[in-house]
């Protein structure tokens, strides 16, 4: 285990707890000001250089580094904005109101519009208000969902003939969704998966998370979920909070093997798979509930290219995004504790291969193995699962 890494399971904060934390913070600041002492706001530093990783914990956790902001002429604006936004969030928690970040941006804009004294606080764009909300979360070490600020439920559309979901709503009512009754339509998981209870009608053999939502749809349309007792999820690119928490819920409650299938490129390896498996540096304080350390990397593996004669192509370094991903991959090999850990040496080897060979291969290339066979991708995936051709 990495030095200083915490292992205790985080307990979700209750509404009353959030309110008292916010009030205490404000009380401390006001008292300091009364004594002409500079108030200091301290938050956990959420960055790679403050990330710890241990295979026993399974995800990135924060180190001891903190970011402190002392009140002075430069920070007075930032602090005023933070306290202004905190007031809105605490009120939301009090009255059980939920808002997205975008909505909070407009709530703040509305208050500023109707109160001329607040005009200097006005946010020029949503990025400004988003960073204030993130700062508050890091300061209170609270999830934004605990502050009733939810994200759009993007990605994670789920298909299964065996899975049943029981959702406890905010008013206490329960509703049950049997995914087998939805036909080819998906189930959309929520940002607050803590309210979901999962059951299996019959044995589920595995859960497959596909990077591309479109490819997941194709597999379902071709009868993948009819032929296999499984859960099939489309991640839709970088996994959102909803996807990360949803897969974590499946890992904890159903105890089924989890496999991720995506492109063979630096971006997928670092930004998609690593985030799903071990969380991200930007969300250090929430990784404990928002990643699934047991998820395995099914492919595309470098050896698959030769084995299945896949279509691959060189990385275009003129493409800004690809060049950036490649540079980030080089940094990850030296700085990312996840890839530096011995347990993940096979994943590190893939990243190394990508950096050296500067080639990439997309998940859809499995279709090209036999374009006349609509089940070709399915056959390869099942073959890989059965033969253990994946990285743990």
């Amino acid at each position, binding site marked *: 285990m990495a030095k200083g890494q915490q292992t205790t399971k985080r307990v979700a904060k209750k509404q009353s707890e959030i309110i008292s934390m*916010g*009030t205490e913070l*404000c*009380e401390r*600041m*006001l008292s*300091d*000001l*009364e*004594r*002409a*002492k*500079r108030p200091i706001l301290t938050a956990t530093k959420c960055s790679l250089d403050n990330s710890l990783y241990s295979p026993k914990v399974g995800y990135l956790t924060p180190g001891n580094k903190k970011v402190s902001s002392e*009140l*002075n*002429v*430069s920070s*007075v*604006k930032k*602090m*005023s904005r933070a*306290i*202004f936004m*905190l*007031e809105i969030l*605490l009120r939301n928690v009090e009255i059980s109101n939920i808002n997205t970040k975008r909505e909070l941006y407009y709530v703040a804009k509305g208050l500023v519009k109707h109160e001329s*004294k*607040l005009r*200097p*606080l006005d946010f020029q764009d949503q990025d400004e208000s988003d960073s204030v909300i993130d700062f508050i979360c890091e300061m209170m070490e609270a999830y934004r969902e605990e502050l009733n600020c939810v994200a759009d439920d993007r990605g994670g559309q789920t298909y299964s003939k065996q899975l049943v979901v029981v959702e406890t709503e905010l008013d206490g009512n329960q509703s049950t969704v049997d995914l087998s009754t939805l036909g080819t339509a998906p189930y959309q998981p929520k940002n607050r998966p803590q309210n979901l209870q999962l059951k299996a009608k019959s044995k589920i053999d595995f859960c497959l998370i596909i990077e591309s939502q479109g490819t997941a749809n194709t597999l379902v349309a071709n009868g993948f979920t009819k032929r296999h007792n499984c859960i099939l999820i489309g991640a839709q690119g970088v996994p959102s909070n909803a996807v990360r928490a949803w897969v974590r819920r499946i890992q904890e409650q159903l105890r089924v093997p989890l496999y991720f299938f995506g492109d063979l490129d630096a971006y997928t390896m670092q930004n998609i798979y690593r985030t799903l498996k071990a969380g991200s540096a930007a969300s250090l304080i929430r990784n404990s509930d928002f990643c699934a350390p047991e998820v395995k990397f099914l492919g595309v593996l470098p050896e698959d290219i030769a084995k299945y004669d896949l279509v691959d192509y060189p990385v275009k370094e003129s493409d800004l995004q690809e060049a950036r991903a490649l540079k980030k991959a080089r940094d990850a090999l030296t700085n990312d504790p996840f890839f530096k850990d011995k347990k993940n040496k096979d994943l590190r080897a893939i990243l190394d291969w990508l950096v050296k060979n500067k080639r990439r291969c997309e998940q859809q290339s499995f279709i090209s193995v036999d374009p006349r066979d609509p089940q070709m991708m399915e056959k390869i995936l099942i073959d890989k699962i059965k033969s253990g051709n994946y990285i743990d």
Partner: protein
Amino acid sequence: MAKKQVKKVTKKVSVEDDSSAEVISRVRKSAKQITTSSTAEYFAKNLQQVGFSSPVKAVLTTLKEALDNSLDACEDAGILPEIRLQVEKLGPGTLKNTDQIRIYVEDNGPGIEPEDVAKVFGEYLASSKFGRGRCSRGQQGIGISAATTWAMQTTATGARVVTKTKNARKAFKCVVDMDLKNNKGVLRDKTNVDWTSPHGTSIEFKLDGRIQLNGEGGLLNYIRSTVLLNPHMTLHYEITDVAPNTVERVVNTVPVVPQATEPHPHTMKLGEFMSHARLFGRTKTSVWLKRGFSRVTDKVLQDLVNQKGLKRKVLDSFVDALPDEDFKALFAAIQAVELLPPATTSVLSVGEDGLALSIRRLGDIDFFAVLSRKPVICDFKPLQVEVAVARLRERRGEDNEEPVQVLRFANRVPLQFDKAACAIVKAITSVNWRAYGLKQPRNALPLGPYIIAVSVVSPFIKFKNASKETIDASDELVEELRRALMQTGQRLSRYLSREHKAGELEQRVQHIEQFGPILVETLGRILGASEERKQAATAGLAKILEKDTKGIKKDLADAEGRLATYLEEKKSRLSGFFEGLEQEDQLTGTDVVAAVPSKPASKAGKEKV
């Protein structure tokens, strides 16, 4: 071309398999068809090559050529130029989408002798300036003749000229037409008239064109640019749709155009070298080399013999009797021998004094920096670069994201077209202006309410085309321009840094006033705190922030102190300018190279250009 035609005919004949007698006869016949055209005919058919490629350019080029000639004439005669200029729309033109335009330029120059009028305005390549190696605006003697040709082609009227020399009792008035066949000017309607000025020349053209006032290729931009680089000129101008205006001179001395130096042997080709020798007739080769070239001394002649193996007898022979082989040997030896680089004394600049005074005529500017680099040898030619950067007060404040305005000059003539390929623009875009406090997108011109004026002066400027619109971007020239721009940028940034500090202080004081009460009020609201607590917190907050403000005030004072020391250092270098300013404007805290005018530069009742 002739060769090509003959070749073509020969080929055709051989294909047809005619008898050899017939072939010879046909070749002879076709050879008879090869004719010679005059220079005038060539230019008449290719006016687009000399700046007449569109109706807008036709007006601008005509005006430019007339004004350049006037300024050159005044400078050559040591007269402070006073120019009257009129551009007016007379009615529809004969060409599609054009107007008939009258262009009139009058100067107080020395005047032209009547017998020279036809040559000056009606003959191509008839010039007193061609290849003489001086930094005059005109060089080849093409421009004004091209304007006459354009006027004749579009309105069938030549140039109307009135000119009077100092000693003449009356002015000579005539119309100059072009005889294209013979490249000659033809004078008609010759008369002698009374003229109020003691000497001078006026020229009037009626031609088809279109007046464009604004934009980079606009007349106003041209006038603005000409005014900047000619601080010794007074200009009265009347242009259709623009109020008549006068821009007074700010310098009362006429720039002396330095005499040309003898050519440098390393700048010559073999043919040129041999032709140059013929000008000297029966002269010893050693004497010819020393008199006919710069940087050739007795020691160089010794080196030619001792180091480069040239036979001594070549230097002792008469140059007109030197066989071609000896010429070739001499040329090779002199190219190989080490010589001092060409002299830079033939370069004429406006100078930082003149630029500093002149830039204030461009508009209401609140800051400027000027720089004159020392003359250097660039691409083996003497050359000098001058840069002026000014910030326009009227365009400030409104988030100005427009690219800066670039004014380009070659030998004090504004360049207004084909900006992208020009060495000056390439140099400006290659400088990192962000380091000097300006916004700049990648590989583009910087943004903001600035004018960047760059002047290149050299007796041999390499233009990309005959119309002299773009300076060729050689690596050496771009590097020299970059250095000048970076030095100006550094001067600019000293001022901007002080301004930035002052702005920062103001912003921070504002922050305290704005955010302090909000912070306390919000905390009080969340906690439901009493009025007493809130007042105590407000007082505590004020104390904290006051400490911070003191620190920034100290920083600002330091920055101002550094700027003052810097200005003091530079003051002695340009004392003339300071005296002028003290008398005129009573400027305080100004710098010649980085100055802040205390009031708008224009005089009452006169508009900016």
